[in-house]
């Protein structure tokens, strides 16, 4: 009986996959990597689909899609639930490591007002460097234990750093280096690749269905989706980082998540952040 159920499950998955792929937007010959063209198409898609949403409002995710939800958010934001994380992050940021150095020594401009430049592609190491990654590398370089990438201290540190960048436009660069273009493309591929038993891609929710509901949740548009990170999420009853968001997205479609800060997660953050160029940092944010 269980074998029959498994076979049925497989068959259903294949049928859904075939159905969805058949219904998907036809692609042009797409082997070349052209971030500028992708950026324009991405922005056009969302602004044409949601002509009444001001461009900068996309960073507010589901609140830009649903008026009632927005009212609730505005009421909540009188006393933002992420405030404690900003305060804690500020204190942590100012506290020296045991060797006397501090987080500010690991960043340009002492780490203040720089969130909009992350992630970036490091030409020396040939990899995408996220804010979370560099914070932990900073700790390890200075003889401290790394933090969990998904919440608690890491969320507090990134909340404070995002807060010092609020309103600054994302400025993600893709150097003219084949490794950087490859990382960008791998991020794009990850974003559009269906995975998990439910056969969803990131795009299934955040490109094809922003504004629609999954159960009680209003789905956020992919445009500007990174801008509010880290977020206080009621579902989590606490703060979570970009890593936490990616891990839970994978789990929700019944896929085994990658490790936080896996190269592919960093690549998809790179891709999405590039797509957010010009939009203001709004983090830390609040989500249902």
């Amino acid at each position: 009986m269980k074998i029959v159920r498994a076979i049925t499950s497989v068959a259903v998955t294949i049928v859904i996959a075939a159905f969805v792929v058949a219904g998907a937007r036809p692609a042009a010959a797409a082997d070349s990597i052209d971030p500028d063209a992708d950026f324009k198409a991405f922005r056009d898609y969302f602004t044409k689909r949601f002509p009444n949403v001001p461009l900068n409002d996309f960073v507010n995710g589901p609140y830009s899609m649903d008026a009632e939800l927005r009212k609730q958010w505005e009421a909540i934001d009188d006393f933002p639930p992420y405030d404690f994380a900003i305060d804690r992050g500020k204190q942590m940021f100012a506290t020296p490591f045991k060797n006397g150095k501090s987080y500010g020594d690991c960043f340009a401009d002492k780490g203040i007002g720089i969130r909009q430049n992350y992630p970036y592609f490091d030409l020396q190491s040939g990899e995408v460097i996220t804010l979370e990654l560099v914070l932990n590398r900073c700790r390890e370089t200075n003889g401290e234990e790394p933090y969990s990438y998904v919440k608690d201290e890491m969320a507090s540190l990134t909340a404070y750093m995002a807060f010092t960048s609020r309103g600054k436009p994302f400025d993600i660069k893709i150097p003219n280096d084949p490794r950087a273009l490859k990382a960008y493309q791998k991020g794009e591929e990850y974003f559009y690749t269906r995975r998990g038993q439910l056969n969803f891609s990131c795009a299934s929710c955040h490109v094809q269905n922003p504004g629609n509901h999954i159960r009680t949740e209003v789905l956020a548009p992919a445009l500007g989706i990174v801008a509010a990170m880290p977020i206080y999420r009621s579902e989590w009853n606490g703060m979570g980082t970009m890593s936490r968001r990616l891990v839970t997205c994978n789990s929700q479609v019944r896929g085994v998540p990658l490790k936080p800060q896996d190269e592919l997660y960093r690549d998809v953050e790179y891709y999405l952040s590039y797509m957010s160029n010009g939009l203001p940092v709004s983090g830390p944010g609040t989500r249902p």
Partner: protein
Amino acid sequence: MRTWICLAATLLAGAAQAANTEVDFKTALAAAVAAEQDAVALKNQWIPTEQALAAAKKAAAAGDFDAAVAQAKQAEALAQASIAQAKEQQTAWRAGVIR
């Protein structure tokens, strides 16, 4: 003659329904684990596969090899589906890209 045929049929049916053994479980588990390793290589494991593998091992530890074999076979089927999905998506992802 008819009696012998009936007896043989009864014995065959009984054999077909014989309880699974630890050897059957180990064979089924090995196939499931091998498939899941392929899914790992493709970075596309499914949570239900992991759950079925855990359930198979738990049933085997309790001595219920029928359930253990059934769970292991389910895990293998799920792993194969995740492999098929990953291979199909190696090119199909492009169809969803905004152009």
